[in-house]
């Protein structure tokens, strides 16, 4: 009986969410002439990938994507290793001052990035790291730690303590319990946190913009921003293709792992 309004609401929602993306995708196949002379909702006359080739090679998107990969994955790795170990020490092990340390990590979630940019910029400049991707790797690792530590501590809380007590009784040192008992038990959690942090770092603009001063260090987001300045006003096709590479690349990961991304992102954020 209430089928029709529901259908209309859902249809409207789908148009709002999907149509801009469809329009973007269609635009990426259009020639510049089609952009300027035909209505915006017209279909491209042919589906050739010239714009993509342009964006990827002459537009340097390939280089920017490579930079992003070089900066993001080491940072993810360091952040996860340190964060998981710290989460374990804070939640499973018993020592004085662990609440204070956890609190110190937690406050890091609230601090705006702007607050640490200038000192870091100074240090990276003085130590000569400025011309490399190290500033990004280091900064991403550190800024990701608060949330990682906090989420890992939460996950370790859900592992029954008896498990670790048992392995201790069996004669394992605590480090051994961590590596052969703790880590395997929260493998899934680590993957979820990795996914959440991947989206945060991959999409970051502020830190990347601050610490990449030369063209060949730009990450994909900074590259795209500059791409707009250099090509955007004159050359629509490659710009649309460049945006598409960004959008549909991310979307592919999301569609593949969608339940996990939704759960991870919402869990990670609210608790932060």
């Amino acid at each position, binding site marked *: 009986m209430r089928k029709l309004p529901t259908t209309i609401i859902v249809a409207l929602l789908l148009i709002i969410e999907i149509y801009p993306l469809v329009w973007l995708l269609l635009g990426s196949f259009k020639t510049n002439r089609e*952009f300027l002379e035909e209505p915006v909702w017209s279909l491209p006359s042919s589906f050739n990938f010239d714009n993509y080739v342009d964006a990827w090679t002459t537009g340097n998107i390939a280089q920017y994507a490579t930079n992003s990969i070089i900066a993001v994955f080491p940072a993810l790795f360091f952040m996860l290793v340190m964060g998981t170990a710290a989460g374990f020490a804070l939640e499973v092990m018993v020592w004085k001052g662990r609440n204070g340390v956890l609190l110190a990590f937690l406050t890091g979630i609230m601090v705006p990035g702007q607050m640490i940019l200038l000192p870091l910029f100074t240090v990276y400049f003085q130590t000569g790291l400025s011309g490399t991707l190290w500033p990004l790797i280091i900064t991403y690792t550190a800024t990701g730690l608060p949330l990682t530590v906090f989420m890992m501590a939460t996950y370790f809380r859900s592992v029954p303590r008896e498990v670790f007590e048992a392995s201790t009784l069996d004669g394992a040192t605590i480090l051994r319990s961590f590596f052969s008992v703790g880590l395997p038990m929260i493998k899934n959690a680590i993957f979820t946190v990795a996914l959440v942090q991947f989206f945060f770092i991959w999409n970051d603009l502020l830190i990347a913009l601050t610490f990449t001063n030369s063209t060949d260090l730009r990450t994909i987001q900074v590259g795209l921003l500059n791409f707009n300045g250099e090509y955007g006003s004159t050359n629509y096709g490659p710009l649309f293709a460049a945006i598409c590479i960004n959008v549909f690349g991310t979307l592919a990961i999301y569609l593949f792992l969608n339940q996990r991304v939704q759960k991870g992102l919402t869990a990670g954020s609210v608790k932060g």
Partner: protein
Amino acid sequence: MKQVLGDRKSILILIGPALLVYTLVMLVPVVWSLGYTLFEGNAIIGFQFVGLDNFARMLTDARVHEALWFTIRYAIVITIGQVFFGYLLSLLYVFVLKKSSGIIRTLAFFPVVLPTVAVALMFQKMFEVAPQNGLVNEFLNLLGLESVDWFGNSGSAFLVIAIMDIWRSMGFYGVLLYAGLVDIPEDVLESARIDGASGWRLVRHIVLPLSLPVLLSSIIFSINGTLKVFDSILALTNGGPGTSTSPLTIYMFQTSFTYGEYGYGSSIALLLTLLCLVVTVFIFRSSRRDLTKG
């Protein structure tokens, strides 16, 4: 047992690296940044001690006032917008689509994972007026209306920013609030229905009060994020036209890196940090009081 779980050397090995990196790259810079607020200059030309001059300057700087006012306006409008539309979405998922909401949730979540810069550039082209009409203006023309230069004045530019950021985030709040709504026990809803509550009345008197905690944490989360807005506005309007859509974050960035004024930039960053802190503490406190009362 206790000895093993409290083994100092192991604790140090496990938490040492994280604590060290976190302290060096976040805690020390925060304190260092506080120190900068008392100086003028930058890393290249050197620093000069100026005492509280930077704070005095902030009090009279019209651009700081404009940026602060924009940041607050933005935070309020976007928070209301994204939590409101998110709540509508979550109600749609739970009460209308019920078990079949999975696909719609997945689709409505799309914009959340997309890179902000890409989304902002897409909206720039959608609302464009020259050299060619974007999607929105073309649609207006179709309805017989004039094209609008959306980025030409601060009011309409703000509107586009709001539309974009709400579009970007409502799916996120939809899922977040959905998680809160599915926790409401079915028998509570059932007994309310038997008592004759339905539709709006059910939402108003049963669902809304019961989902208040998750609504409040959404609001805190949203305000905390919106006060720090940077990427989306930078890529969409670059703070323009003029400086009319520059939040504190963008003004801080320009002061520091375009004009090389580290001291003043740090002071603006401190203002932003304090704003985040005060707002969060304030909402957290008032929400806790209300909850214990209700």
